[in-house]
């Protein structure tokens, strides 16, 4: 499966939760599949989805699901120790690990070679770290939401992107409707 197929499958789960979605094609795919006010789409700033989600989870009690990528985690590796030492039980970091920089033309990342993000998350102090195959994402995500534990969920899948339109919504609108969803 590729990322967009996973997102289609888990959209009914994501719909009811606060979601912080990674820059580029992941946000375009989620926006096209099931746009929700409770989705925060990153339009820029590669690497910070996990950090934005952590700040959000620490600031309020609702579950927060971050949809991140292997390339973005590698860009902001310092995030893993911060998560490992601070993440509250409502924080879920889901790393869609397809071994490539999808938004820039599928250049390979180091996770397609020798680098193991789940092992890095464990070494950084993250307690509940689960690696699953693409088809098992939905059940793993539901179990994680039920567990109430801070979790890093590494989803291994194929490289590839769906053709989706660019998000043209104004960033302040994205942010404002998201904050309304957070506060509701």
């Amino acid at each position, binding site marked *: 499966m590729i990322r967009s197929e996973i997102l289609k499958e888990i959209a009914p789960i994501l719909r009811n939760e606060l979601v912080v979605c990674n820059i580029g094609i992941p946000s375009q795919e989620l926006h096209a599949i099931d746009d929700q006010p409770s989705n925060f789409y990153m339009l820029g700033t590669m*690497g910070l989805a996990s*950090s934005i989600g952590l700040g959000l989870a*620490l*600031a309020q009690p609702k579950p927060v699901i971050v949809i991140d990528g292997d390339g973005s985690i590698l860009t*902001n590796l*310092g995030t893993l120790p911060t998560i490992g030492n*601070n993440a509250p039980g409502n924080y879920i970091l889901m790393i869609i690990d397809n071994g490539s920089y999808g938004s820039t033309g599928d250049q390979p990342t180091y996770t397609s070679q020798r680098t193991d993000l789940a092992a890095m998350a464990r070494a950084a102090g993250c307690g509940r770290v689960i690696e699953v195959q693409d088809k098992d994402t939905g059940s793993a995500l539901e179990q994680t939401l039920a567990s109430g534990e801070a979790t890093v969920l590494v989803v291994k899948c194929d490289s590839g992107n769906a053709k989706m339109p660019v998000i043209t919504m104004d960033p302040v609108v994205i*942010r404002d409707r*998201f904050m309304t969803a*957070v506060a509701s």
Partner: protein
Amino acid sequence: MTIDKRIADDLAANGVSFVTTVPCKQLAGVIEEIDQRDDIFHIPSNKEDEGMGLCAGAWMGGKRPAIIMQNTAIGVTINTLATLIQYYRMPLPMLISYRGELREPVACQVEMAVHTKALLAQMNIPTYHFHWQRDVEEFDNILKYTFMCNKPVAILTDANFWGGYGDQ
């Protein structure tokens, strides 16, 4: 009252309850003060752009955030300031140690100091420079201004403000 406690008190009085820091010798006292307080949650960052991501999330979650860092961080965070904090219009007080200014003992720090105000001006970031300890009297108003206009705002605090470097 120490300058460190005064700054932390002003943050708390303005409802700032989420502070991330990247350390600096000059900022050690204020970081320690914030770490010990019950009314402010302190989360150290490994890099300043990561810290700005934490602050963005905390603000969307209903908390007033602040970041404490060195001016070298301006070199690290230009993209984050432009495409996250400014683009989504978020407030962010940035208490910055202005390394490389008067009473600085380390020459390399001057190399970023000479770019600091120019970069902040290029980014249209409101910028204040604390040189004398009495300048801290503006801090409360700067915090109110920041959360009024939903912009990143820089407070540059040089070595003279912090009382120099002791025996260095």
